């Protein structure tokens, strides 16, 4: 569904990521972990077209997307839940969701998509007339996820969805991701919480210094030595 081949992004002359290869197949949840500055967000930003790739290829459902503006990449089937949620605090919950509809390939089915998100996150229905800024952090995260889901993307990218949330709220976010997984959505999950992500995802890439260092499976989550080696190098 999502194929990244030999991706390279430079900030000035400094390469932020070098030769990254990623594969996310239909219905899979793939994790992407790594220490701060490893290039996780840069990779996502390159996929959605916010930063320009200097080399490499990005394909979504077979269509090449690099070099396209973000608003077109969304319509090609890439949904993003950005870091820090980036909801529109002064707009209502409903308006935030309606903005998500802009990324749909066709208007048909909009109502059903909204209903689907309301079913997944009932609070978004109850609070639909409230300003999004009055929601709690966890609810705002649900809104950010719901806003991406109403566009019915082929692949959903999540950039550190648990960042800055209280531990119990993080549980709720992972519950939500589990619910989305059951709907068969394809997900690329970027996270700082390594152990949790490795246990949750079908496969997890470990990124370090702008390169994919290794790939872990759910069984590795309990292997503390391997986790430490993945992060800090052996």
């Amino acid at each position: 569904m999502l194929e990244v081949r030999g991706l390279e992004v430079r900030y000035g002359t400094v390469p932020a990521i070098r030769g990254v290869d990623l594969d996310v197949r239909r219905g899979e949840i793939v994790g992407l972990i790594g220490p701060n500055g490893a290039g996780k967000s840069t990779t996502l930003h390159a996929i959605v077209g916010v930063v320009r790739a200097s080399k490499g290829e990005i394909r979504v459902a077979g269509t090449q997307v690099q070099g396209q503006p973000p608003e077109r990449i969304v319509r090609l089937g890439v949904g993003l839940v950005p870091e820090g949620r980036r909801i529109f605090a002064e707009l209502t919950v409903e308006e935030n969701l309606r903005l998500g509809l802009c990324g749909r390939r066709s208007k048909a089915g909009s109502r059903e998509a909204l209903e689907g998100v309301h079913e997944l996150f009932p609070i978004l229905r109850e609070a639909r007339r409230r300003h999004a800024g009055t929601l709690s952090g966890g609810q705002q995260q649900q809104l950010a996820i719901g806003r991406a889901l109403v566009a019915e993307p082929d692949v959903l990218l999540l950039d550190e969805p648990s960042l800055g949330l209280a531990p119990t709220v993080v549980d709720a976010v992972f519950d939500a991701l589990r619910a989305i997984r059951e709907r068969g959505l394809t997900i690329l999950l970027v996270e700082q919480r390594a152990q949790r992500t490795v246990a949750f995802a079908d496969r997890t890439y470990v990124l370090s210094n702008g390169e994919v260092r290794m790939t872990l499976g759910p069984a590795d989550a309990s292997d503390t030595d391997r986790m430490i080696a993945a992060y800090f190098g052996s």
Partner: protein
Amino acid sequence: MTENAQTLLDATALGSIYALMAIGIGLVFGVLRLVNFAYGQLVMAGAYALALTQDAPVVLSIALCFAVVLALSLAMEFAAFRPLRRASPMTMLVATFAISYLLQSIALVHFGAIGKIVVVIPQLTQPLTIGSLHVRWITIVTILVAICVFAALTLFLNRTSIGLQMRAASIDSQTARLLGVRANAVITVAVLISGVIAAIVAVILPMAVPERILVTPDYALRETIIVLVGVVVGGIDRLLTATLGGFTIGFAVGALSGFLPSSGDWPFTSSVYLDSAVFMLVIVVLLLRPEGLFARPHRSAVERV
């Protein structure tokens, strides 16, 4: 008493014109983060269109004014704003200075420095007598038009999908694009609405402000500068505060010029010291409320955990 009421009505009308210009400038600033210093030249172009078609039927003349202003708005967007999309706000501001002076020079070369008289609808400049109050029709029309424009724009921004996209793009344009909002389409619509408002001002200004009956190359330049100051005083980040800022400074100019005696010693002569008095008020406001007169204190609701 009557004289005071008349002064206040005139000041409200002047405030309404400035508020209209503030809406036009604020709308484009919202989606582009671009302060369009050349906004007054859109009004100038519209006023020339009216002046040069004095003999044509008034409807045709006004239609031509709208066509000229809208075409020029689009030309600015495609020839200047779009190529500078990734430039810094300072670069874009300087570019609009250049556009402003370019358009003034073109007008000077083509039409000369001597003003052309614009009479749009002479009936509207006739007074209406209510008791002892003499109000010109245009005063009332100006206030009503400003209210209607503001109401229509509010409906547009709140009730339509493109309006919602425009508000989102004003708040956080990158996130809006990541959701699929077509930035260029939204900006083009904002530029067009801003142009419509400039054309409305071009029709109203020559009738509402007596000394503006003469179109010159620097037409509406002074208004633009004062409106920009008003927009900053009100708070440029939001359309409502920018509009209120425009209205307030226009009202202040109108009221001060009415209440200050027109002759005598400093600081009491409106003809000489009007601008000084207005800008003194501006300095006081910015010292007391640097974030803008009507800006709400910053809330950090988004940072909630």
